């Protein structure tokens, strides 16, 4: 029996901060384990193949990066520069993970934007409905 919600979070991410209470409230109401994963340097987020793809900038990697960062820097340097230039974020990621008796399945949702209140409300409603359905599937209730 496995059903859990993981929020991949960053300390410097204001959107994560606003999403956290919403998800926590939903999970508390449905009694589903909720985990906040604060991703450090070595951690790999759901959307990334490599921890180096999130580590800020080529200059940062050259100066402070780990060996594996430096190794893959050649390939990803242009991408990092582009991400830096457009100010793209890879957080927050919501990972909803469940086991349906055969194997583990995951739904990964990237990003959160509460500038439009109606949209944010619809998002919360969708997540609530999904989790409620999954709970029924996983616990057969």
């Amino acid at each position, binding site marked *: 029996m496995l059903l859990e919600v993981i929020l991949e979070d960053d300390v410097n991410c204001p959107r994560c901060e606003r999403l956290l209470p919403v998800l926590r409230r939903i999970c508390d109401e449905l009694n589903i384990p909720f985990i906040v994963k604060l991703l450090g340097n070595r951690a790999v987020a759901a959307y990334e193949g490599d921890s180096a793809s999130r580590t800020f900038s080529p200059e940062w990697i050259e100066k402070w990066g780990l060996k594996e960062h430096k190794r893959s820097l050649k390939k990803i340097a242009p991408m990092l520069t582009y991400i830096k230039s457009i100010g793209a974020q890879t957080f927050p990621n919501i990972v909803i993970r469940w086991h349906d008796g055969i194997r583990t399945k995951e*739904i*990964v949702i990237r*990003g959160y934007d509460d500038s439009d209140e109606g949209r944010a409300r619809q*998002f919360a409603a969708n997540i609530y409905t999904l989790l409620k359905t999954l709970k029924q599937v996983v616990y057969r209730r």
Partner: protein
Amino acid sequence: MVYSVFYYATEAITRAFVGLFLKIIEHMKHRRMVEEKRREEKRPAPSWGFFGTVNPYGVKEYTWIGRTTSLKVSLPGLIKLPIAAHELEKPPTRLYFTFAEAASKDWFKEIEWLAEQAEKVAKEGGLGAA
């Protein structure tokens, strides 16, 4: 007289050639010989430090034996706990969505469609996505 001079000269040249030939062969043989290596002296068995041992119950342990004191400490070896939920045999099936997709009213239709596709692939004997 002339005859003997030629004779001795020819003999000397022949001797020189044969001698040189034999010397070359000897040199090549000598080169092939392998010099015996010096054997490294074996270190004495350690009398103090960590030793891997098996206790009477058949569990692997590490025992520390002191150098100057008669200290003897046994440490149990680390055991990897098998937790079924944490060891995934196959990578989990992942469906990716953006916030815009997740916030739309037709999100569930999309999930259903993706799940159907994954099941189809699994039935056709693909990578076993579902």
